[in-house]
Structures are given as C-alpha cells and as structure tokens.
C-alpha cells in the first residue's frame, strides 16, 4: 500500500496503520536442523512409507490407501474465489522429520535443544512449570492459573506434548495422533473419519492419505478438562507440505477449550498445507476451538506464502451439545477454510466467530457451514473481513435448516471493510430453509448486531460504533482472552481493528 495514501472517512489512521504493520511477519526465520525427507512426489509407496514411519497397524495403512485411491480420481475444486498457480502435487515432499527425532524422545528432557529453542523463540516454551513465565496473565490472572498443555508439531512429527501425566490423572487423553493410533486404536477406529469422511473433498482426501501427525484429544464423560489444550504447528522444511490431522472427542457432559497456532518461515516458494480437524461432541458436552492462523502470508509482492486448504468440522451428536469456533485468520497466501457445525442433537448449538484479514496479495475464501438437523438447534455466525492492498477476501457460508430441525434459529452477520481501492471483499452465503418454524436471518450490515443490546448501550449514551464494538467484543472476549501468550494480545488488537470504522 502507498504510504501517503489518503484515508477515507470512517476508517481511522490507527486501523490503517495496524493493518499495514501486519506486513512485517515476525515468525519468518527458519531453524537450521538436519531433516530426513521421504522421496519427493506422491504415490502408494509414499503412503506406505508415512504409515510405516509412524509405526501404524495394518488397518490404518488400508484406511490411508483407500483415501489415496479415491484422491487420484478426484478433481481439485475451483469454485472458491481464489486465483493461484496450478499446484504440482508431485513436486512436494510429503514427509519431513528432524533427524534428532529418529528415536522418539521418551520425555521433553530428551528433545533436541534446537527444537526446544525454536518453540521458545516462537513464544511457546515446552516446559511445564514455567509455561507462561514472563507472560503477564490478562487482567491480573495469576500466571499459574492459566496453564496450557501444548502439543508441538514440527513439520511432519509431534515433538512433544506437555502436561500429559497431569491430564491423564483426570482421564484426559492428549497426545499426538500417531501415538493415539498405536495406544488407543479403539477410539481412533471409532471416530477417525466419522465427521470428515476419507473422501469428503479433494484436500481432505489428500490429508487422509498422507497425514503425518497432529493432535488427539479424548475427554471422558462428565469431565471438564483441567487446563486448556493447544497445538502449535510449525512448518520449517522447504518445499514440504504439512498435513496434520486433529481428532477431538468430548464424551457426554465433557468440556474442553482447544487452541491452535501456526507459523512458517519466509520462503519464496509457496508451500502446501492441507489439514483436517474432526470434533465429536456427545450429549451435553462442549468444545471451544480457537485458532490464530499466522502462516507466512507471502511477501508484499505476493511471492511465497502458505497455501492453506483446511477442512474443519464439528459434529454435535448428542442433545444439548455445543461447539464454538473462533478464528483469527491473518496469515497464508491462500486460505480455503470453512469450519463447520453439524447440529444433529436436539437443542445443540453452533457458533462461529471469524476475523479474516488479507493484505498485499493474500486471498482468503473462508466461512462456515451450519447444518441444522435436530430440533430447537441454534447457530450464530459473526464474520468480519478486512481487505487491504491487493487482497481478496471472501466470506462463503451455508446455513441449512432441514425439515426435522423444527424451531431452530440462525443469525448471521458478515461485515467487510476495504482499505484502498485495489482490493476486493465478497460475500457468498447459501441459505436453505426447509421448515417454517425456524427463523433464519442473514445480514451484511452493521446496523443490527443485536438490537436489544445495542439499544441498551445507546440508551446509556454510548455511541453506535462503541456500542457495536462492545457487543461484539463482549462475546468474543472470553475466547480471545483464553488464547495463549502474545496471541491473546495480538488477537484482541485484531478484533479492535476489525471493528473500527466498520460501522456507519
């Protein structure tokens, strides 16, 4: 963006500067570490190799091969408003592992100091007792009260998982998915692919064939997970795709808050990332899933960056199950991501809060799906998109009320803000209503966040913009503050940016 560009009415200088400053990517350095690669390209042998590297049982290999055979016959989707060069799937490494991880470390003490230093530099010290040392808890909350268990994934492998023992005491299983396949095959067999089937879509199918690592979470019935869980994904190796797979199961009455962060070095060549996240939520259980997506976005001329194709889906299988997706999307050259909720259980609830910021030549096509199947189900979508520079930002969403989903309710609000006249902001919602007792409201204006709350604020002398900021911040704040370390501050700053100037 031009430095002396005129700022139009309604967008204050701070917002413009804040967005512009996002161009300076803080996590663009690489770790110099010896890495073992699988041969370049993709074929059945590579799938077998990944499976054997992970020490998987035969059924898992078969599962992968089935996915691979389906993928070969699939066509890459082109419906998103994204424009990128053809991806050569044979010109990628599908597996990269630091040499020091050849023998899996038994505890964090045995992990290569270079890897630990990498995470420390990213602000994720992989040490239990001082996890948040030096980071002030927001609003005076004592640091030790905000412990977060971390699973750290480096290229294709999980480096280590903290607080495993303490979590085990509560019955919570938190480990890498490769460990889970070996140690908890009954759970993995039962739930893997049950939310995002093997051949769900092109990118999910690719992931099903070649996923290398990721996190596994199981919260037993009636258990509130004693701390927040988090996975930090780092791409380090060049020319390597990352394909992580996350599976979260909240059994009846369970609760967990899960956080995800990701970064990658600055490189001139675009890198592929195709992840799958599956969440199973049983009766009365609740899952909060928060993401600060900060993959390398490419430089100011659109060179390099991560191509981010992600399938995330939560299945509210039981009555009164609840899921909340919160995403702050600031990175990636290409974002293709639609965290979805299947509201199968009666009175189940799905929420989606998203802030997507695209600058320079970034392109984001992101949104959500709310599939209402059970009666008295509720969903809420709040999406804020900001485009700057030459970026294109698209909200794409679906709200579907099935005939059986009586008395259900959806409220959707999408706001877009353009900064500069070279960028684009688009809204592509699909609304399907098949019963008459449900109410669906979609709007792309800022004048009606929630009339009652807004009226309450306004009646007390708070201006419209401040009132909307207050209302939106009100329901975002809990989730955003729960994000670990500097992410919380960063994400909060981003929310403020997204609201300023978006009213009126």
């Amino acid at each position, binding site marked *: 963006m031009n430095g002396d560009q005129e700022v*139009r009415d309604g967008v204050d200088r701070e917002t413009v500067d804040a967005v512009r400053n996002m161009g300076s990517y803080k996590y663009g350095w690489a770790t110099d570490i010896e890495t073992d690669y699988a041969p370049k390209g993709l074929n059945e042998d590579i799938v077998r190799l990944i499976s054997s590297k992970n020490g998987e049982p035969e059924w898992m290999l078969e599962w992968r091969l089935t996915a691979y055979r389906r993928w070969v016959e699939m066509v890459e989707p082109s*419906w998103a*408003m994204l424009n990128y060069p053809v991806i050569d799937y044979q010109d990628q490494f599908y597996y990269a592992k630091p040499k020091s991880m050849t023998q899996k470390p038994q505890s964090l003490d045995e992990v290569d100091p270079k890897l630990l230093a990498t995470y420390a530099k990213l602000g994720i010290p992989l040490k239990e007792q001082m996890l948040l040392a030096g980071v002030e808890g927001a609003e005076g909350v004592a640091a030790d009260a905000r412990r977060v268990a971390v699973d750290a994934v480096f290229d294709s492998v999980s480096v280590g998982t903290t607080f495993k023992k303490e979590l085990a005491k509560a019955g919570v299983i938190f480990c890498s998915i490769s460990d889970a396949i070996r140690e908890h095959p009954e759970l993995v067999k039962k739930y893997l692919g049950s939310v995002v089937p093997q051949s769900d879509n092109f990118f999910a199918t690719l992931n099903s064939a070649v996923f290398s690592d990721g996190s596994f979470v199981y919260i037993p019935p009636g258990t509130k997970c004693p701390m927040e869980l988090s996975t930090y994904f780092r791409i380090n190796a060049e020319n390597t795709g990352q394909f992580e797979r996350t599976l979260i199961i909240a059994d009846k009455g369970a609760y967990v808050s899960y956080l995800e962060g990701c970064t990658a070095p600055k490189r001139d060549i675009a890198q592929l990332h195709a992840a799958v996240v599956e969440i199973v939520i049983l009766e009365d259980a609740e899952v909060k899933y928060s993401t600060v997506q900060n993959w390398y976005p490419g430089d100011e001329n659109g060179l390099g960056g991560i191509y981010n194709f992600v399938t995330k889906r939560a299945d509210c299988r039981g009555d009164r199950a609840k899921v909340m997706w919160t995403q702050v999307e600031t990175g990636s050259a290409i974002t293709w991501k639609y965290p979805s909720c299947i509201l199968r259980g009666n009175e189940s609830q799905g929420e989606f809060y998203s802030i997507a910021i695209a600058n320079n030549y970034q392109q984001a096509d992101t949104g959500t799906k709310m599939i209402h199947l059970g009666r008295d189900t509720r969903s809420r979508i709040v999406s804020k998109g900001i485009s700057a520079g030459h970026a294109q930002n698209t909200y794409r969403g679906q709200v579907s*009320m099935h*005939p059986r989903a*009586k008395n259900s309710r959806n409220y959707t609000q999408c706001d*877009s803000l*353009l*900064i*500069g*006249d*070279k*960028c*684009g*902001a*688009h*809204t*592509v*919602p*699909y*609304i*399907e*209503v*098949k*019963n*008459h*007792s*449900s*109410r*669906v*409201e*979609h*709007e*792309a*204006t800022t004048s009606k966040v929630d009339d009652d709350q807004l009226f309450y604020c306004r009646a007390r002398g708070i201006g419209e913009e401040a009132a909307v900021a207050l209302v939106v911040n009100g329901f975002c704040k809990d989730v955003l503050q729960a994000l670990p370390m500097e992410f919380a501050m960063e994400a909060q700053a981003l929310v403020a940016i997204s609201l300023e100037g978006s009213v009126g």
Partner: protein
Amino acid sequence: MQAVRTAAAARLAEMGWPTRRDEYWRWTDPATFAAEEVPESEAFRVERPIFSGMDKLRLVFTDGVFDAAASDDAALAGVEISRLANAPKWAVDAVGSLEAAGQKPVRRPLAALNTARATDGILVRVTGRATKPLHISYRQSSNTSDAILHHYIKLEPGAELTLLETGTAGARANLVMEVDVGEGARFHHIRPQGRSVGHRVVSAIFARVGAQAVFKSFTLSMNGRLTRNEAMIEIVGDNAVAHIAGAALGDGADDDFHHDDTVFITHGAVGCESRQVFKKVLRHGAVGVFQGKILVRNGAQKTDGYQISQALMLDDSCQFLAKPELEIYADDVKCSHGSTTGAIDETALFYLRSRGVPREEAVALLVLSFLADAIAEIDDETIAADILARLEEWLARHRG
C-alpha cells in the same frame, strides 16, 4: 436477422444445455425448459383482465405469435414498433447484443436458445415521452404451446416508457427482453405473470443503463408450476438508478409451485444506486429460490447497493433457498444485503386477534404488510392499486 440467430445458436452449442450441476441451477431443475417435448399445461381461460381501466397500447401474443386482430393499432407518438421478423435498420446490430454480452461471467444457455429460435417478438424504439403505457399481453390457447419471444426495447436519451407485460405466453415460455436505457431515459416495467397454474416460464431481462437513467422493474407471480425470472442489469453510466423487485405467492396445493428469482446487478459507473427487493409467500410445499448479486467493479465509487430477500412460510412443507451475494472491488461504497425466513409473527397475529380480527383476515393483513416493501417499488398508483387487488384476490382464494 439470420446472422444473429446463427451466432446465438453457435453460443448455445458452445455452452451446452444447463444442468443441475451449474452453480446457478443448483436449486432449480432446468430440464423441462430444455426438453424437446413441451410439458402439457392447461390454459387458464377466464383470467380477469388487469389494468383494464388504463389508457394503453395493447399488443397481443397468442401462444407465442403476434395476434394483430386482438391488438391495437401500433401507432404511438415518439414510439416506433415493429415485429422481430421485420427488423428496422437500428435493430439489426442491436438485437442479441445485450444477451451475448450478458453471457459472462455466468453462461445463460436458455437465453441464447431464445435468440436463436425466437418465434416472434417486438422491437421498440422510444424517442420521446410515450403518452401512454405499452402493454404486451400474452395469451395461451393450446395446452402444449411453446412460446419463445424476444423483445428489444431501446430508449433514446431522455425518452420515457412504461411497459406492462401480462398473462401466460404458453404452456411453456422462454421470454427474453433486452432493454437499452439511454442517458437520462426512464424505463418502468410492470409484469404480473399469468394465472394458468401449470405453465413453465423462464424469462431473462438484459438491461444496460446509461448515465442518469432510471430502470425499474416489478414482477408479480402467483401461479405457474415452474418460474425462473432472471435479470442481468449492467449500469454503465454515472448517477444511474436501477431497481428490481418481485412479489411471489405460491400455493403448492394448486399444482407444484417453484419460483426462482436470479438477479445480477453490475455497477460499472460512479454514484449509482441499485435496489433488489424480493418477497415470497409460500404454502403447501411451495419452493422459493432467490439468487442475487451486487457486483461493484473497480472504480465504481460512491455506489449505493441494497438487496433484500425474504420468505414468509405459511406452513411446514415449504422451502426457501437463497444465495444473496456481494462482490465488491471498490472501497468507497455502501452495499448491504439481508435475507430472512420465518413463519407469521405470532405476536403480531395475537395482537390482531385480540382486537377482534378473525385469524384468516389477520393472516391476510400480515401477508400484505410483508409484501408492502416490494409493492412500494411501483411508482404509478393506479398500477399499484391493480396489483394490490390481484394480491387480495389470491389471498381470498387461498385461505385456511
């Protein structure tokens, strides 16, 4: 004209027929529009004439062919009227040009089919202010008629025309109207679609709106087994206005009722205003579809774009499927859209009933108030009153 038809046939051959796999046909099945055989539909014979109290110039098309005996003498000051077959010089390069331009970015094979195979149509050139409305009146006499009509309306700078389009054109109808609204010209279009319950109609309006010009179109649909009304409006001149509105009331008990509005408004100039107002009242398994887009091109600053699509469902078997889209490449714009779906507001109903209004009457009142925003898009009060009378008749017929 043969060259125009050949070019359109080539476009169609290149595009192929529409299918459910096309993005903009996902909710409406185009098969019967493209089928070789016309699905049978009984003509509705006792349709009470609408706009009968108005002074207008009436042109009648029966089963897709101009009916000179039933039509008025085509003489109106400031308006030149001719049939498609006798295209005057001004029309030769014009006919088909807006349809061809409107094939991007989304293909519209049924419109190309229309240009290639039109059975008839009128070409209208308006050079001044028309002293009375032009009325295209469609009639259906055969249960298997296939009407393919192609009209071209050209409004020279500063010209004004009100166009009324009424009735059922055939058991199956494919209607294309190209409208070129010159600088400062004003075009009003009012279209109550016909009453025969089983007919199928696909219509497309391709409009080009010049600087300071006004384009306004309103459609009322109350019957028809399958209706697809498309509008592609391209605003090319600064400070122009384009409004398009529709009210659809469907009762699936008469026959199937599937009603689809697909609207694309493109802002290609500075300081223009567009409005899309679409309301649907559905009962007994009726299906409503709305696909609307506001596209603001780079440089089309100071755009004011608004779009609302709403469905009122009177019972549990209906469906409303909507895709309200925004595609914006300019930063100094005000664009918004809204879409709501739901049942009759029980609180409002209770309020009316507690004041002694019988339930059926209360429902009728709430339906009319739901449709009010769309009806308000009709400027002429006499026309609006006639449309309202039609609505009230429908509500009286579809009680309980």
